[in-house]
């Protein structure tokens, strides 16, 4: 009996062994490979028209009509488009495409691919990224009329409603505007999914790289696009993001030389890395901010602008940035972060308890008031514990006479309450969707967008109008002036206390040179070298 089982098992093993194909060795060695330790466990799709969580691979695999050069997110430049024209009313955009651009498949890029890309984003069901395009008034019904190929190398986009030209171009430069190879994608469509099932873990782009594999929860790997002809072939031949969730393990792997860049290090780990010569710290401001929101209806005191102002004067911004964030953040008090057009470096507020108390007196709440503060579990922007930050704010506001009850809940629960206009005070953050000031000014100031201002029931028509007016302009000094006015208005009257702007800090091996990166495109692998 036992012998029979053993012989059967041996025969089975030999059979399987014979049937399985041999393995292939990786084509590129460590010198041509850059390994980036990052927590990529939340990635759900690498389809440019669907993906939302982790877009750096997407930016390297797809090309767009226009792009932001790495490190400069204030002005787009043509990429697939050789040139483009904007009509006087900023509603019609004509893109003249480069000739002879090849996708990784070898297919030639044409205006049909651009049209198909737009059709995809408004038609894919349950698409988290679709609102970037549908907010312009483009939907499944009108996309044929709005986006047209007038000849194989000309695309005309005639927007059905006025939309900020700065925002439009920056969305075109965003991952969602990555042009897909329509022939390849169409051959993988299943059940009307516009190829989104296949494109989630495959690629069909014309960027410098192609997706070699994405094994969910394990690793994302890029290798060069053999047909890339929009620039010189990149020196780095293989980019791998192994999914390493724990920052301690990321630091260990950097120390062993198994990874070249560690992305999710804590402020303390970053500080320690600076003292070691084998590594360096690459740091830029992230495009986002941590803020304190005050609901102007649910808390009677916050209906008074003086009470909101009192909160802004009661907070110890310096202490938050220097002690809590250990320098992993920049001071920011306006609604547009550093790195974007329209950023204003003014810091009008500092901790002044007497002034805060006087403002409360003026508001008719001299004996103080009480409010619940919603805080999520986990980290706030910049890696500090959200609970620690909330405790600091409770302490700061308490000194001015405002009693804060901290209610710590899961992020999903926080957002349900907040989005349902049920909060009193909320500690939250806002990060860039597309690098244009419009992506910050409108959520913070324009209640008609049903975003942050609306959630806090701050219905200010002047603020909404200013945000809208500034949004409709190109990056001119006039636009900058409008954002300055909006910033001042929100600082005086708005329902937010902007706390700080977090930094992105990478721990990088000294073997990596020419490390240039920004908050949208990620590192520039075409320029990067490894020795």
């Amino acid at each position: 009996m036992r012998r029979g089982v053993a012989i059967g098992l041996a025969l089975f093993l030999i059979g399987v062994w014979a049937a399985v194909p041999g393995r292939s060795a990786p084509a590129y060695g460590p010198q041509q490979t850059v390994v980036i330790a990052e927590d990529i466990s939340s990635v759900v799709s690498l389809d440019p028209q669907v993906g939302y969580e982790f877009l750096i691979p997407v930016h390297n695999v797809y090309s767009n009509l226009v792009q932001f050069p790495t490190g400069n997110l204030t002005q787009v430049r043509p990429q697939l488009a050789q040139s483009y024209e904007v009509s006087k009313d900023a509603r019609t955009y004509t893109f003249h495409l480069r000739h002879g651009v090849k996708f990784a498949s070898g297919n030639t890029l044409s205006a049909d691919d651009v049209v198909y890309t737009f059709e995809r984003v408004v038609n894919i069901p349950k698409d988290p990224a679709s609102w970037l395009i549908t907010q312009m008034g483009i939907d499944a019904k009108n996309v044929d009329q709005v986006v047209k190929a007038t000849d194989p190398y000309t695309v005309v986009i005639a927007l059905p409603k006025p939309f900020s030209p700065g925002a439009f171009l920056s969305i075109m430069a965003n991952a969602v505007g990555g042009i897909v190879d329509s022939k390849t994608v169409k051959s993988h469509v299943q059940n009307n999914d516009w190829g989104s099932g296949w494109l989630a873990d495959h690629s069909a782009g014309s960027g410098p790289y192609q997706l070699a594999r994405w094994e969910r929860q394990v690793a994302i790997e890029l290798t060069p696009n053999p047909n890339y002809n929009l620039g010189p072939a990149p020196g780095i031949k293989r980019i791998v993001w192994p999914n390493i969730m724990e920052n301690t393990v990321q630091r260990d792997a950097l120390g062993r030389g198994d990874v070249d860049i560690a992305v999710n290090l804590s402020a303390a780990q970053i500080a320690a890395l600076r003292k070691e010569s084998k590594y360096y710290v690459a740091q830029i401001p992230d495009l986002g901010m941590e803020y304190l929101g005050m609901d102007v209806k649910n808390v009677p005191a916050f209906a008074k602008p003086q009470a909101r102002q009192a909160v802004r004067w009661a907070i110890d911004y310096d202490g938050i940035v220097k002690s809590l964030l250990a320098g992993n953040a920049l001071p920011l008090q306006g609604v547009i972060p550093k790195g974007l057009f329209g950023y204003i470096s003014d810091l009008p507020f500092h901790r002044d308890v007497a002034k805060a108390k006087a403002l409360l007196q003026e508001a008719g709440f001299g004996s103080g008031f009480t409010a619940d503060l919603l805080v999520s579990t986990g980290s706030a922007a910049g890696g500090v514990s959200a609970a620690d930050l909330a405790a600091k704010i409770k302490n700061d506001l308490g000194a001015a006479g405002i009693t804060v009850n901290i209610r710590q809940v899961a992020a999903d629960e926080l957002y349900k309450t907040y989005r349902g206009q049920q909060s009193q005070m909320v500690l939250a953050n806002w990060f860039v969707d597309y690098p244009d000031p419009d992506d910050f000014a409108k959520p913070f100031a324009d209640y008609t967008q049903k975003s942050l201002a609306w959630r806090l029931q701050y219905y200010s028509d002047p603020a909404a109008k200013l945000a809208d007016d500034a949004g409709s302009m190109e990056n001119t000094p006039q636009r900058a002036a409008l954002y300055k006015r909006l910033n001042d208005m929100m600082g005086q009257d708005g329902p937010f206390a902007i706390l700080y702007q977090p930094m992105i800090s990478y721990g990088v091996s000294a073997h990596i040179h020419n490390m240039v990166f920004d908050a949208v495109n990620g590192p520039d692998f075409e320029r990067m070298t490894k020795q």
Partner: protein
Amino acid sequence: MSLFRFLARRTGLAIFVLFGVTVITFALSHVVPADPVVAYLGDHAPPDLVEKVRHELGLDRPLPVQFVIYLDGLLHGNLGISVMDSRPVTQDLAQYLPATVELSTAAMLVAIAIGIPTGIVSALHKDGWPDQLARVFALGGASLPVFYVALLLLGLLYSRLGVLPGPGQLSLFTSPPPVITGMVAVDALLSGDWPALGDALRHLVLPAFVLGYYSTGIITRMTRSSLLEVMRQDYVRTARAKGVVERRVVLRHALRNALLPTVTVIGLTYGSLLSGAVLTETIFSWPGIGRYATNSVTNIDIPAVLGVTLVIAFIYSVANLVVDVLYAYLDPQIRYT
């Protein structure tokens, strides 16, 4: 009662348990004070998109209707589509379960390989220094938090000494073997890919020890106490009186009976290893079902949560059943009832 009837009755009971688990999980997932659609779309999604997607997902229908639709799918072997990654839950489970089975099985083997001999040595040297040493070791397994042991051992054996590899199932410069079972080491063995097999086994050592350490402690203590108990029995004295060598008395006569409670512990902890590997999987970047379950819960991905719960409940039921059957095999006095 015959073995067949026993199995049939237990299977019937298991189906009842699985149905109960489905009802409770479904109800619990819907009373969570959070919005699954916002969790999926992200905080920036405008309210009209949220409502559109809520409709597309069928989450705007009455709860009983949603449950009946789910049950209907279940009866047809369909666990639904994961909201997060838009793939069938069965496909996700088929991808993540093998990694956890591989890790848990390795952990169990490590626990048995260390736990039983240590328990025997402890019992034979009751209150001597080997026993004291084993007690400290076992106590560590039962009381040290998994993440602490994991980070400590990674820091020492990987980061400092470099004798064992870091996180993941394979090194980045080892080509993965072709997928046959989804268990990397097994696939490497089946395809005769020796470099990959060596690499996979080296990657398995630390997480398997860390995950199995808790069970090792319990198995050690269990083996020790039941062996001590058995060694006092009359038949052991008889065996000795007959002149049987001590080694044979312990291994042949005493251990077989002493292992009975240990088998129960092994069966039950195997179930908990499969479902409780999440911390180990997180620290060692192991793409298993524990990670999938946590992601599903934090994203309120109801079909995925239900799928994982069902699978884990199923594994527990099977593990219990196997323990009961093994019991009767090890002790002929026990009858199926």
